[in-house]
């Protein structure tokens, strides 16, 4: 069992996120994180789903996802060279005494200070989950008031977006009968 990362292209329609999330729940797969947003194609959203499973489970996840009518393309990018990022906004208690050291810490972690208030500051950091966890670790003694994270988003390295799994023209309207609906 290890974490598998899937890039899932879906039609941007009401209820599609629910269908995908329901599938993972129904088949007993535990979602580690799920991030959704627009993709490069109008009308198509891209999800990054991170799931704890074994290689066989990862294959079945792909097959099950393809059975959802609104799912256009699935790529398991776990083993492919990829940029993986998580974004965090962290609000920390900060007064006159601690503010300077917090700014230094932010600098060390390549985090940005995006809000300064009399009794708190907000840090923004993007990076791997482990790096953000590291920042969080050193911030805790100061008092973390609030935190929000996007969960993992990922994109494969290199010029070709094509996965070997992708049948050509899969994103075009396809009138033929498919095995997988």
């Amino acid at each position, binding site marked *: 069992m290890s974490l598998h990362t899937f890039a899932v292209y879906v*039609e941007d329609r009401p*209820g599609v996120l*629910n*269908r995908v999330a*329901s*599938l993972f729940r*129904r088949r007993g797969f535990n979602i580690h994180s799920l991030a959704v947003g627009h993709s490069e194609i109008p009308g198509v959203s891209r999800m990054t789903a991170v799931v704890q499973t074994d290689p*066989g489970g990862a*294959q*079945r996840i792909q*097959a*099950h996802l*393809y*059975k*959802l*009518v*609104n*799912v*256009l393309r699935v790529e398991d990018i776990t083993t492919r060279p990829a940029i993986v990022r998580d974004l965090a906004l962290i609000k920390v208690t900060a007064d006159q005494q601690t503010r300077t050291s917090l700014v230094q810490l932010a600098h060390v972690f390549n985090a940005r200070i995006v809000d300064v208030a009399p009794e708190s500051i907000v840090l923004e950091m993007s990076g791997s989950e482990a790096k953000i966890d590291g920042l969080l670790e050193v911030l805790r003694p100061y008092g973390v008031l609030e935190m929000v994270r996007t969960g993992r988003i990922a994109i494969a390295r290199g010029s070709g977006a094509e996965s070997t799994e992708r*049948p050509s023209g*899969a*994103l*075009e*309207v*396809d*009138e*033929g*009968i*498919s*095995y*997988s*609906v």
Partner: protein
Amino acid sequence: MKLTGAQILWESLVREGVTEVFGYPGGAILPAYDALLDYPIRHTLVRHEQGATHMADGYARATGGVGVAVATSGPGATNMVTGIATAMLDSSPIVCITGQVGSRLIGSDAFQEIDITGITLPITKHNYLVTRAEDVAKTVREAFVIAKAGRPGPVLIDITKDAQQASCIFDWDAAAPTIPGWRHAHPIGQEQLARAAALLNAAERPVILAGHGVMISGAMDPLRQLAERAHIPVAVTLLGIGGFPASHPLNLGMMGMHGEAWVNTAIQEADLLLACGMRFDDRVTGNLKTYAPHAKKIHIDIDAAEINKNVRVDAGLIGDLRDVLERLLPAIAVNERAAWAQRIAGVRGDAAVRDIQQLPDDGHLYAAHVINDLWRATTSDTIIVTDVGQHQMWEAQYYHHDAPRSLITSGGLGTMGFAVPAAIGAKRARPDAEVWAIVGDGGFQMTMCELATAVQERLAIKVAIINNGFLGMVRQWQEFFYERRYAATPLSGPDFVKLAESFGIHASAVSIRGEVLPAIADARAHDGPVVIDFRVEQEDTVYPMVPAGADLDAMIRRPNPIAETGAD
């Protein structure tokens, strides 16, 4: 041409070839019902919406076409849930149409408003909420394509009342389905086929496992050719019954929990399993860790998600079964496999006496005997629809099906109450066929209201109640695994003869063996629905039995090779 959404609904269904629907009206679907009167579609009024879905399911399974069920919003829609799940688990193509409250009321907990697309999300292949008349035609077209394509299954269309009432231009061509998520199957490469053929040709003790996919794909001929050419015995799943003729010398019979000993023994001793359109359900494998330990496995299925799901296979061929078998056939070597045939014949001889007709009459009436008599009295094109429980297993053992689609039963979900409505649906689909529902006294009481439907619609279904005064299969489990503590399994019921007669149905009761065949002959001769109450031995047991999760060959065998049943 300007039409209302309701008119577009029926117009689209007509163009999809629909002539029969099963349904129940109500507030939110009223505009559709009003428009129905103007279209050449016959509506069967059911007594409960669950019945409508089972009828649509029975209709679909009897013909291979798509069955259609209609209901109103709220409770009408939720009553469909069991039937939709039944169709989902057994890959049966049905389209369910439900009315929904007006689109402006959605989310307000309006009267009879329920989120039926949310509820049915995990038990449909796909579902739709339609809020505009403009979307009706396209949605219907897509729904039919999705229901039939690949691995078939149910699709639900929820249409708001205002979408039914509003008018728009109807343009069938412009409503052509566009399903961007569709993909063509990766064509199976020659090397994959060659690999599977090599495994098969090298096998000394192969067994074919034939499932529902044989019927769905229409693969009966290539399956038979392959089995005959390579002399491979064929074991069938419950839903695979009829996909390979029972009378064929290579037929082993049903596998799994209540399969005969030689079938499961053959699977356990096999050095190769060729799984055709079946999914290694726990009821057919028993303990997965010890399942077919010596066998290489080839799995042909149209659903990629089934490959390696329960059983790890050596070759997985994803595609239409008929197509794959036809491509595989030329590479299969002729092989007598005499030693394997001899071994299986030997195991067969060792099993309990199966010729139930030769058993002495001890004054008791046994369900297995009734079912075997029904088989003797009817022809191979008879459609038998069974409910769920002991009678279902006895039917699978003692009614020998030679024709595909001649057995309709709820396998995956195991839905009690399925038989009577599904038989009505099957009779609608094939009005000239003789249709029997075999049903226990428990399941019958779940949906017996549909007898009124059969009467009103003049559908001459024959109902054989296997009445043992128990929830028999549960009682059997209690007998084996719960020290005969019969919690909540003794079951009373009405006088079924009087009940049927009150519906205006010809009925009789049978409690001795000699009356079975005359009662069946009387039922067959009667031009209309018939109910026969077969009052059988109360504490009878289905043998053999593989306890749930046990090794497939660790069967509870018949206690006495002569006695078919538990008559001590």
